[in-house]
């Protein structure tokens, strides 16, 4: 597996200049929160790194993460890091032409046991004996157990793989689960959530591993801190409007046109850990809040259930309807109970006094 200088050759073959590569490393350094001066060192470290074997699996997915990766900035370099490296696995498949694909996969898994990195996109259905997602006649669960079980590390790319995502949303018709839940006890599980995961973070994770020879520190949901260590809210370009108390009230109003805070339209930036505002999307072109739409909270576990309704600050109260207003229900409850207590109290006092009067004809001033 060790093959010094492989990347240099690949870069040359793809017509990527050294300068372009160092520029890529500078971007990566920024995402990993390293000083820009390390870009050159980073470049050297990546070039000298051992070549990892990747296996990319797709289960109950929409291919959004793969597509996201296609849009990576400096894509040629990212492709080399990810695509070309992962292609090794596919070449094994192709080399085994005439064999069944499963056999080829098994061979890779066996030959590189404990050494390869499994990248997984999509959730894994457990219902109907796995028939909700089969590949070459095999169920997703069977494949995941086989491949992730023997991997050096498993990267769950996207919220579906990391947390179950949309297939696992209420009522979870297919019994979909996250990779970590489908194959308990996976070694070095890393969740790169978001819908889809930002390509820059996928690349940054691999660069981290290649250069530091270790996996990054993770948060409690096993997400790397370099990308999920801060709230969207804390890096948001519209934060000043939040603190000032200036909010968009309706779509297209003056506040909206001038980029004020989307908090009142249900923005989930304050409860979502992700680095969108810093790295943005599609070569740094834009990001959802930048185009005037609230954050959906897509990097958080179960966001399809927890963050919905998307356009409300809070979910309604169960039993009062989806869009019920928590405050209105609360005021009703408080007023109702207070009223009941008051009426009951007055009735109690009055009735006690009446009873007392009837009882002993005592003067009213004395208590019974």
């Amino acid at each position, binding site marked *: 597996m060790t093959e010094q200088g492989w990347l240099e050759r690949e870069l040359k073959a793809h017509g990527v200049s050294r300068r372009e590569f160092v520029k890529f490393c500078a971007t990566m350094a920024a995402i990993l929160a390293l000083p820009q001066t390390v870009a050159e060192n980073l470049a050297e470290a990546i070039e000298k790194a051992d070549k990892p074997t990747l296996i990319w699996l797709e289960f109950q997915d929409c291919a959004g993460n793969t597509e996201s990766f296609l849009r990576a900035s400096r894509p040629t370099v990212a492709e080399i890091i990810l695509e070309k490296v992962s292609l090794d696995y596919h070449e094994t498949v192709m080399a085994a032409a005439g064999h069944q694909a499963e056999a080829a996969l098994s061979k890779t898994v066996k030959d590189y046991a404990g050494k390869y990195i499994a990248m997984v996109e999509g959730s894994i259905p457990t219902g109907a004996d796995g028939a909700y997602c089969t590949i070459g006649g095999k169920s997703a669960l069977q494949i995941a157990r086989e491949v992730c079980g023997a991997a050096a590390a498993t990267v769950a790319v996207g919220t579906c793989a990391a947390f179950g995502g949309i297939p696992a949303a209420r009522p979870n018709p297919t019994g979909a689960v996250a990779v970590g839940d489908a194959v308990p006890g996976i070694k070095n599980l890393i969740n790169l959530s978001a819908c889809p995961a930002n390509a820059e973070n996928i690349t940054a994770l691999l660069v981290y591993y290649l250069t530091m020879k270790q996996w990054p520190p993770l948060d409690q949901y096993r997400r790397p801190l370099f990308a999920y260590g801060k709230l969207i809210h804390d890096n948001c370009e519209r934060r000043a409007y939040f603190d000032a108390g200036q909010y968009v009230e309706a779509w297209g109003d003056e506040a909206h046109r001038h980029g004020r805070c989307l908090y009142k339209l249900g923005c989930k930036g304050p*409860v979502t850990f992700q680095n969108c505002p810093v790295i943005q999307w599609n070569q740094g072109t834009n990001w959802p809040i930048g185009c005037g739409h609230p954050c959906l909270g897509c990097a958080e576990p179960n966001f399809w259930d927890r963050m919905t309704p998307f356009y409300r600050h809070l979910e309604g109260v169960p039993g009062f309807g989806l869009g019920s207003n928590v405050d209105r229900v*609360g005021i009703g409850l408080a007023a109702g109970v207070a009223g009941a207590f008051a009426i009951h109290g007055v009735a*109690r006092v009055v009735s006690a006094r009446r009873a007392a009067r009837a009882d002993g004809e005592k003067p009213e001033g004395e208590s019974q």
Partner: protein
Amino acid sequence: MNDASARRLPESAPGRVYVWELPVRVTHWAIFLSVVVLCVTGTYIGRPFSAGGATTDRFVMGIMKVVHFYAAIVFDVALAARIGWMFFGNRYACWDQFIPLTRERWRGFVKTTKFYCFLRHSFPETIGLNPMLGLLFVGIFALELLMAATGFALYSVLAPIGSPMRVFRFLVPILGGLQDARWTHHVGMWLLITLVLAHIIAVVVISVAQRSDMIGSIFSGYKLIVDRQDGERDNG
């Protein structure tokens, strides 16, 4: 327990009894006032109105949040002190005032329930909290703890680097994520308001019904026990 004096109550003759010790009164009012501030600022934080003017001149949400956080410190300290005092204070401050565990309290609980269900005319005399009010306080304390826990979880992600409050991030998954913690915090506020209103009304009703200076006692600490015969009569 240093409630020896409380146990030596005069068997007869109305008199002033020292019921609410200073820590009880201080924490009571600290909790109450901080909750008022927390509810006002919290309601704004959850449902802000838009401020006009130049952004550079405005810091409405910022101020609301800071006030909310300072009020929360008062609330949390007072709550912790009050809960601690349940184990060091006099018999009226004791934790067993809230749950009718002893036979005496249970009997009192049944009597009070009968009174409230119009099955009994006279109000059963109690010096501290009546057992039903005690149960109400179980609810209030439980909600206050819930508010503290959800509040800590929500603050833990805002706390600056190096702040010890960051350890409370462990609460976030337990509470079902930040958005669920938010929801619980918000709904918890309304439940707490509801129970506090119930408490206030109940105290007023009791004061009138019992002719005791229940309301005054939480300021002065002393309660005037008017009619001890009442206790003997209630078997009849």
